[in-house]
């Protein structure tokens, strides 16, 4: 699993990059009450705001961690946003990205680096 400074995790599954937020991020956000996902097929560039997530406290965005195309979104989160707090690094993935070159992930943090980043 790879991690970004925006507290996203990325995992490669069947040549797609699955993206979610880390347990640390979910805990900081507090109870998530609203999730708005992009449409599958959307082309995104790194740092585009692709997901809106609102907790009891505030609204925030999830940014595209790399360039790519949204291949699939996790519609279950729209009906049950609380999943993001229950299983942020498992069932509560947000979207899957189709990207051209998986090697761009090499530049991201591994788990040890992320742990150090979070402190």
């Amino acid at each position, binding site marked *: 699993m790879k991690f970004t400074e925006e507290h996203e995790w990325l995992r490669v599954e069947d040549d797609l990059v699955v993206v979610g937020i880390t347990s640390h991020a979910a805990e900081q956000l507090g109870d998530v009450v609203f999730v708005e996902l992009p449409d599958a097929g959307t082309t995104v560039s790194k740092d585009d705001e692709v997901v809106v997530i*609102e907790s009891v406290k505030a609204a925030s965005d999830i940014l595209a961690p790399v360039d790519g195309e949204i291949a699939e979104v996790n519609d279950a989160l729209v009906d049950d946003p609380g999943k993001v707090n229950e299983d942020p690094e498992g069932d509560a993935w947000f979207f899957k990205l189709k990207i051209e070159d998986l090697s761009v992930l090499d530049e991201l943090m591994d788990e040890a680096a992320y742990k150090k980043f979070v402190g």
Partner: protein
Amino acid sequence: MDELKRTPLHDLHLALGAKMVPFAGYEMPVQYKLGVMKEHLHTRAAAGLFDVSHMGQVILHGDDPQAVALALETLVPVSVAGLAEGRQRYGLFTNDQGGIEDDLMIANRGDHLFLVVNAACKEADVARLRAGLEPAGVRVEYIEDRALLALQGPGAEAALSALNPAVAEMRFMDVATVELMGAEAWVSRSGYTGEDGYEISVREGDAVALAEALLAQEAVEPIGLGARDSLRLEAGLCLYGHDIDTTTTPAAANLLWAIQKVRRADGARAGGFPGADIILPEIATGAPSVRVGLKPEGRAPMREGIDLYDTDTGGEAVGRITSGGFGPTVGGPVAMGYVPAERSVPGTRLYGEVRGKRLPVEVVTLPHVKQSYKR
């Protein structure tokens, strides 16, 4: 920046795992381990203990209690002289423009009046009271050595009765002095959640023992400012500085119920408070823009500052949300805000602009969640 102040329960908050945030000059718990959502639901289901020691406590003394009450009536459009001993009432400090300088609770405790004012306004309120009342011979005592706790929820009566059964006899807005854990407590049956419950003032040295005795009970959990906000929002209660401020009149704020007949035009003690020449005529004419409940039709929360429109595209903003978020008991977004009077009828559909998109929102009657006061 001044250093943040701490309440007498500061160490207890930390021991309970609170997340502390700056609020009105104090370091306050925004949530504990349960988190905002569960704390909210727990308060409505059982009982929640809130530290509200940051709020201002003031006593007004004088040789003649009736003269003290009449003096305070020069600052608030409320019948203070008509407030029976052992009773409390909601009030407003108004300004010459008819706006609201703060909202407060006024209790008649026999030989004195006891006021509770908002934390962010307390210095200004004390100055206002001194300037307005001392010339009339009233002594304004700013209480800085007492904590204030709120115990709220359907389990509050049983929890506080376990410490002193006398509190069960109190009804909504009663005030009494009772002994709790060997300490003299000034108790009112009131709160800011829409639930039954109590607010309890004790000397700061007695606060921790009282809080611990309440928290030791199964039904009672500590609750932070996050849930306090969502609870009061569902209950349709105003947050000063957001839903009411120096520019909103009582009529606009939909708070005319706080102005008793005796202070209105043709009342025995009509007017005589700041802004009466604006506030009283507006009772008959109505305000151009009024505070209403708003229920977003979708799932997206509509928060403070969101503009409201008549249509889903184009046009000028006609209103604005002043408080909004997710209501855990409602299970969806809830809000309140100001809309033109002609659009204030429940059922009116407006559109809130969220992230550039106009989403439907319906004007609804407040509260969003039925209040359950013990009247």
